[in-house]
């Protein structure tokens, strides 16, 4: 379903490799989590997979349903079914949230040869999804993420995910900056999208999020690659003991 093979990537401006041969395979409907110390390359992996500029892929591949994503523009990757929930959602003054969402939804539908939603259909859909995430009409009218609290920004990410219905969702530290209630709300939003077919990759520092979004597999990432994979108990181990033992194990 989602396959990362021997992925090596560097920063464009510096001669510094961040990803050093990463391998990851996520099957249909599975939820995987990635944990790892700061600077291990977790966010870089999510940016390289979704096509952010500023990175050079030195080797390897990223495939979604057998289709190579690395040659595609970010919007084409999105239309192919990839979604990245940002750690820091970008504020875009002057662009209305609603306009943005509708353009995004219809651009993807168009790219896939599906019929675009008209204004009424779109409005009905967005209201329904927003309600579940406790996003009020006012938030939809405002410019994208401008003046949103940390929690509102993350809820807005999940709303976009719900509207775009991707096949593969990468959640980059979606729990950062969230209080307990907001984390629960966001997690419920994510769980509502688990339908047995859609796959998730949850990047997090804390086991707490994984109490809400239960992973099938937990990976530990360090220095640009996965160093250990296991069941949910691996996250508990990290929570209790930190990374030191795991890093020593592979050293």
């Amino acid at each position, binding site marked *: 379903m989602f396959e990362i093979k021997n992925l090596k990537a560097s920063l464009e401006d510096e001669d510094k490799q961040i990803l050093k041969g990463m391998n990851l395979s996520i099957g249909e409907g599975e939820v995987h989590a990635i944990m790892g110390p700061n600077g291990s390359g977790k966010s870089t992996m999510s940016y390289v997979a979704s096509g*952010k500029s500023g990175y050079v892929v030195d080797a390897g591949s990223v495939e979604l349903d057998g289709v190579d994503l690395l040659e595609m*523009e*970010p919007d084409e990757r999105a239309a192919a079914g990839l979604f*990245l929930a940002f750690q820091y959602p970008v504020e*875009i003054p*002057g662009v209305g949230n609603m306009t943005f969402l509708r353009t*995004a939804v219809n*651009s993807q539908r168009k790219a896939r040869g599906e019929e675009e939603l008209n204004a009424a259909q779109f409005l009905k859909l967005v209201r329904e999804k927003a309600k579940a995430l406790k996003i009020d009409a006012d938030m939809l009218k405002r410019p994208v993420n401008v003046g949103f609290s940390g929690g509102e920004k993350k809820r807005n990410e999940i709303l976009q995910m719900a509207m775009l219905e991707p096949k593969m969702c990468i959640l980059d530290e979606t729990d950062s900056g969230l209080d307990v209630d907001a984390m629960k709300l966001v997690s419920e939003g994510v769980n509502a999208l688990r339908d047995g077919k859609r796959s998730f990759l949850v990047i997090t520092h804390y086991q707490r999020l994984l109490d809400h979004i239960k992973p099938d597999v937990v990976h530990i990432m360090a220095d640009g690659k996965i160093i250990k994979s296991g069941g949910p108990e691996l996250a508990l181990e990290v929570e209790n003991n930190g990374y030191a033992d795991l890093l020593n194990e592979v050293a």
Partner: protein
Amino acid sequence: MGEPKQESAAETLLGRHASPPAASNWADSARQAARGRVLSMGAAGRRDEYWRYTNPTELNAENTADVGILELDESPVFDGVEKLLITFVDGVFSPEQSDDLSGESLEISTLEDAMNSDIHWASDVFGQLEANGQTPVQRPFAALNTAMAEQGFVIRATGKISKPVAFRYLRESAQSDVVIHHVVRVESGADLSILENGAGAARLNTCIEVDVADRGAFHHLRAQGRDHARLAVTHMFARLGEESTFKSFTLTVNGKLTRNEVVIDINGNNAKASVSGASLGDGDFLHDDTIFITHDAVDCESRQVFKKVLKNGATGVFQGKILVQPDAQKTDGYQISQGLLLNEDSNFLAKPELEIYADDVACSHGSTCGAVDENSMFYLMSRGVPRSEAQNMMIAAFLDEAIQEIEDEALADDIRSRLVGWAQRHSA
């Protein structure tokens, strides 16, 4: 000044147009005085402080080059708006293509008719606001306009005018060199809107003098056509009374050379002035906004909001000044000018100036120049929005602060749709 070379350049300017026929004494003397101003100040030159960024050579030249006439592929700007339409073809009023010139609380006559009658208020405005606006900065093209213009309208509003007066400047000739002068008086408590649309000429020189009485309101919205090779130099001179409002917005897409000058003298307390514009150019494009706002009364507010989108070597110029006189306490002045460069070979040249002699004022100004924000682009694209569309959304967002200066929402939306149209045509 006074060098023989510049004097002959001034003669060339005046010689380009036929002298207007003799009219009433007051009109003739105003024109004569303007003629004298042109001769004494000479033509604009690159050494002039306010012509450093914009080369006036083609505006000064004796003849105009051929300028192809653009076939419009969209409905005319302001098409859907109820208005009193006044059409000029190559700078000449065309009654056949205009509405009946009447309206409640509205006195309107051609410049020619007005110059031949004894309109008391007009003699107080025609050539007078322009002359006042010549210090401390000289504006020879405005004086030229007063001296030579035969075409234009003289308008007086005595109440709230429901329909805007809409000037439409059509072109049929490839080489027309046109001068148009409007004179406007908004009486106490009256409210008038003026729309202008069209390139008008191969080389267009317009001047509008606006006298807004106490508690009067004047709105101006302009779209300068899409003809690529046209040249335009425009002036607005305004005098504002107590608690009056003046708002002017200009949309400029394309145009080889456009110089828009707005000179406002805030004379009455509690008055508000706003001058704004959005301009978009791709390639052979130079757009210059030169603004001078003088605060000479207390508790007044002025805003200058200018946004320019520039691509493939296009140049944007902004020269904006706020002058706060010693007695103009509690002045609230705001000025922002921003250039969005869609690629690296475009230029945005800005010269914000604040000259403040009062001690209790709040003036803020800012000027920025940069490319489309890459993080925002990635965010939009990661949601499936294609690059060109994402860029167009960013352009629209960038321009919106200027468009928000337009009070009428329907007109603002009309302008927005033109911007989107331009962005889509130029997104390759």
